[in-house]
């Protein structure tokens, strides 16, 4: 498979072949060029040779003419003509040829006497002039064009046979120059028949200028033609041979290299597509190195697949472990998130009845804190096992965190969900926690949300609905199983739950939303207000949300510390704004978790600066779980050294108040409304509570009665020795403003007590 920007072997091979063809063509072109150059050089050489050849032939012709003239001039019979001219024509027309003085009839000779008159003037002289031309006296030879015939004239003087005799006369040889030249032997380069002389009719030409006026053609050189033919054939044969070699090489290249590489590439592609081992069984590649590469790749691929399989197995193991809760063995929060998303998609694609069950262990933190983490973990395992046993075969249990579990059921009905919840509680009731040393009953609250198939589009609301149902189940008096819609006030709760959650988070982000309403605490006797308990409210969109509505949200979101910090900040602001007059104390509620947090301690240290004008008291709600008792005790001792008084709030509703009273430095015990109401009873309960009040009073604790709403109860608590009292009878919680207190001087009560 090709990669963009890369070249295939076939393309490279094709490019290589094209490059070779181009190179071959270049070589052929160069060879043709060289051949043409050689041919031109040979032609030039032939032309020069022809010119030299012609020059030599002309010279030979001229020399031959001169020799003939010399011979004629010295010939006795020539001299005889001047003394006996009766038979001159015989001599001229016959004798000179028979004797060999003139070699051919192309040459004619005429004799002239000393005055220039031709001998035997009346006889035909073959066109030779009747009088000796003047040129004969100047030049030994010249050419003339006479009627288109190029004639060579060569004159000579005939001496008298004795020095004293002087010149007897002259001779004039006329030669048909072109014919004689063409008949010259030894023309190898010149084409004799193509010879011509550029000379206008009637004009003459010196013999020295013959060559420049001569036009000639180079005779085709058989050797040169043969050479060219051989060279051309050789080049053609070479080209064909190279081309054939190229084709053969291409075939060999294709068969030995390209095809194996292509097969190797196919093998690699097949390996990428997972077809391992199939192609290895095919015929091996011819190239040993490629076969080695192929086998190595196969082996490497096999090893990779084996490694991949191992990694997949390990991945599955890791994924399983990653999705499993190590403590309980059920699925963890990660698995919940993944499966819940998938579940929603499935349900939306295939509508069906679905249920969401949320499990929460009651008072697990108290158990954990009381019996230790090991037992707490064991409790969670037993709970998880019980839930799993109660579920259907294909249902999965998810631990969302801490003591909270969830199950979402497909193909379910609300009845099935409720039955599973009840079965779960039955199993837990049957569980023997006593073996763990846990004497208190351990149970879970179960919130159920159900949607029929027609409403599957709202499947994503199921967790919230189950959450609401859960809080409903946890409310006192419930049977700890609540089905959203049936057991909850569906519309309002849904609205409130979401509104309170939003209110809490917004209040924490903007502390101004938290309002502190102050309820006066009166000292007994005298009923004088000695301090105020700060009670938090959240102002949300103009409405005031009460603690009973937002505290569950704070608890469920584990926002106790943040909320307490916000309350302290607001209280600090109120004191700075002098809403509470000097001398009058302030009591602030803190969760037990906040006591051990450095941020809160730091804030309290800062807050302690008000102790000079306002007695300060921290109320620890005994329903809060205190898991690190020693650490909390240390911090409380520190706070007490800073003039904070520690009060045990809502005494009588908590889980182990006696232990807290024993282990923690508590100064004040605030009896819960439920206990205060029982003080007026005349039964055993009334007596127990009364005795308990006496005991606490005798132990030196300052006692505060909460929720006093009528005079009878007021008198009763006063009689029992309660040092302080608060309730609607004496004052409701309300916002304070500075002018309200400016008129009176508060007196410290609790702050000064003890």
């Amino acid at each position, binding site marked *: 498979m090709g990669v963009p920007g890369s070249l295939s072997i076939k393309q490279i091979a094709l490019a290589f072949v094209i490059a070779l063809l181009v190179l071959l063509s270049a070589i052929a072109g160069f060879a043709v060029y060289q051949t043409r150059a050689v041919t031109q050089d040979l032609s030039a050489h032939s032309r020069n040779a022809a010119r030299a050849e012609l020059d030599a032939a002309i010279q030979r012709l001229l020399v031959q003419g001169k020799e003939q003239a010399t011979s004629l001039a010295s010939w*006795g*019979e020539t*001299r*005889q003509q*001047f*003394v*006996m001219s*009766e*038979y001159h024509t*015989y*001599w001229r027309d016959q*004798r000179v040829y*028979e*004797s060999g003085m003139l070699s051919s009839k192309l040459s004619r000779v005429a004799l002239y006497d000393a005055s220039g008159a031709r001998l035997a003037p009346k006889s035909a002289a073959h066109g030779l002039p009747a009088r000796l031309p003047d040129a004969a006296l100047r030049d030994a030879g010249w050419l003339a064009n006479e009627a288109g015939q190029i004639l060579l004239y060569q004159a000579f003087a005939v*001496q*008298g*046979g*004795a*020095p*004293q*005799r002087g010149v*007897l006369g002259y001779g004039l040889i006329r030669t048909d120059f072109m014919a004689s030249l063409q008949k010259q032997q030894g023309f190898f380069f010149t084409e004799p028949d193509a010879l011509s002389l550029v000379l206008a009719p009637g004009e003459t030409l010196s013999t020295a200028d013959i060559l420049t006026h001569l036009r000639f053609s180079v005779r085709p050189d058989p050797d040169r033609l043969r050479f060219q033919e051989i060279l051309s054939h050789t080049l053609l044969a070479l080209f064909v041979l190279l081309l054939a070699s190229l084709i053969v090489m291409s075939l060999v290249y294709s068969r030995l290299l390209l095809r194996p590489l292509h097969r190797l590439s196919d093998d690699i592609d097949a390996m990428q597509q997972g077809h391992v081992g199939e192609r290895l069984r095919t015929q091996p590649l011819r190239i040993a190195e490629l076969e080695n590469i192929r086998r190595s790749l196969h082996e490497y691929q096999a090893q990779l697949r084996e490694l991949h399989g191992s990694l997949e197995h390990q991945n599955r193991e890791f994924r399983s472990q990653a999705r499993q809760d190590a403590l309980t063995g059920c699925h963890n929060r990660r698995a919940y998130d993944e499966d819940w998303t998938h579940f929603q998609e499935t349900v939306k694609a295939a509508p069906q009845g679905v249920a969401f069950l949320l499990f929460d262990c009651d008072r697990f933190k108290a158990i954990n804190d009381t019996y230790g983490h090991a037992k707490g973990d064991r409790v969670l395992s037993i709970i998880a096992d019980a839930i799993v046993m109660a579920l259907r075969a294909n249902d999965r249990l998810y631990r969302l965190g801490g003591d909270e579990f969830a199950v979402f059921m497909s193909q379910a009905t609300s009845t099935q969900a409720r039955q599973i919840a009840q079965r779960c509680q039955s199993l837990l009731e049957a569980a023997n926690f006593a073996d763990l040393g846990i004497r208190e009953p351990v149970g879970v609250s179960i919130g159920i949300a159900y949607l029929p198939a027609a409403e599957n589009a709202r499947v994503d609301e199921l967790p919230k609905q189950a959450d609401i149902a859960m809080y409903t189940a946890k409310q006192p008096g419930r049977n700890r199983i609540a089905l959203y819609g049936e057991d909850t006030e569906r519309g309002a709760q849904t609205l409130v739950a979401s509104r309170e959650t939003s209110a809490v988070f917004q209040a924490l982000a903007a502390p101004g939303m938290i309002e502190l309403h102050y309820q006066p605490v009166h000292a007994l006797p005298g009923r004088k207000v000695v301090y105020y308990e700060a009670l938090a409210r959240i102002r949300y969109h103009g409405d005031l949300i009460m603690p009973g509505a937002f505290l569950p949200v704070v608890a469920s979101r584990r926002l106790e510390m943040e909320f307490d910090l916000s309350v302290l900040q607001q209280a600090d602001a109120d004191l700075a704004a002098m809403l509470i007059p000097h001398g009058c104390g302030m009591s602030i509620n803190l969760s037990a978790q906040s006591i051990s947090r450095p941020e809160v301690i730091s804030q309290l240290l800062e807050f302690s600066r008000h102790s000079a004008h306002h007695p300060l008291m921290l109320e620890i709600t005994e329903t809060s779980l205190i898991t690190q008792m020693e650490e909390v005790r240390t911090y409380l001792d520190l706070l007490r050294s800073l003039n904070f008084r520690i009060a045990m709030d809502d005494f009588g509703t908590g889980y182990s108040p006696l232990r807290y009273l024993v282990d923690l430095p508590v100064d004040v015990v605030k009896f819960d409304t439920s206990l205060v109401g029982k003080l007026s009873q005349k039964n055993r309960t009334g007596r127990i509570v009364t005795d308990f009040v006496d005991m606490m009073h005798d132990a030196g604790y300052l006692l505060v009665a909460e929720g006093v709403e009528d005079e009878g109860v007021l008198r009763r608590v006063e009689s029992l020795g309660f040092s302080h009292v608060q309730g609607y009878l004496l004052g409701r919680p309300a916002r304070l403003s500075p002018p309200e207190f400016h008129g009176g001087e508060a007196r410290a009560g609790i702050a000064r007590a003890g």
Partner: protein
Amino acid sequence: MRAFLLCLLVSLASIPARAAVVQIEVRPGIPASAEYLAAGTDKPAVLLLHGFLQTRTFATVATLAHGLHEAGHTVLSPTLSLGIPGRETSLACEAVHAHSLDDDVAELAGWITWLESRGHQSIVLVGHSFGSMQLLAYLARSPDPAVKGYIATSLTEAQIGDLPRAELIARLEHQIRSGDHALVTQRLSFCQNYLSTPQALLSYLRWDQARTVAALRTVPVATQLVMGDSDQHLERGWIKSLRRMRVPVAIVQGANHFMDGEHEFELLDHVLGFLQRLGGR
């Protein structure tokens, strides 16, 4: 015959001392030359004539001339002009031969006069072949008194082969009488195609063997014939005919017509012997 001494040229370095080429104008416009090998006048001067159409440079003649000169004889070797001004080479048979025997005799007379002018009062004529016949023709007329002897080597008549001489002469005479001057081609001596004017040819044709023998009988000076017995050029029985005369005939055994090679010395001996005898007479 008018003979003028034109000049005496002493020019050729190759010619030994006292050797010179001399020229005379034998006829108007026709100079002729001769080699003059001068010696004392105490011995007879020799006029040595070449054969038919040859020149003085012909080997037999040239060798003989130098042999005689070395023997102390003045030798004059003329080259007959044959109508050619300043002829120096042999004349081809096919050339136009307008010269006649009379012209040749006249030229010989001129050279003899020239020798006389050089103080030679005793002149011996020596000829070779046709030249012997030409010298015989000179002697047959009125020879100069200075001519004292005549040696004919390889003497031959004007040979015409097997043709009937009389008929040929008659035809030529008729041609001449009819004014026909056309050239005639005829065998003459060693020329198979001797081209000549009728008159010139006729002058030679008249010298047949009979006229030659007759002339020999009337030669007014001492005569010596030197013939080679292997001379194939001669007509059969010619030497025998010569022997029947009272003229001494020396036969060079084995010599051909040209008496070349080793026979040159024997020829020279015969000539010198004649000259010696002539001097002692």
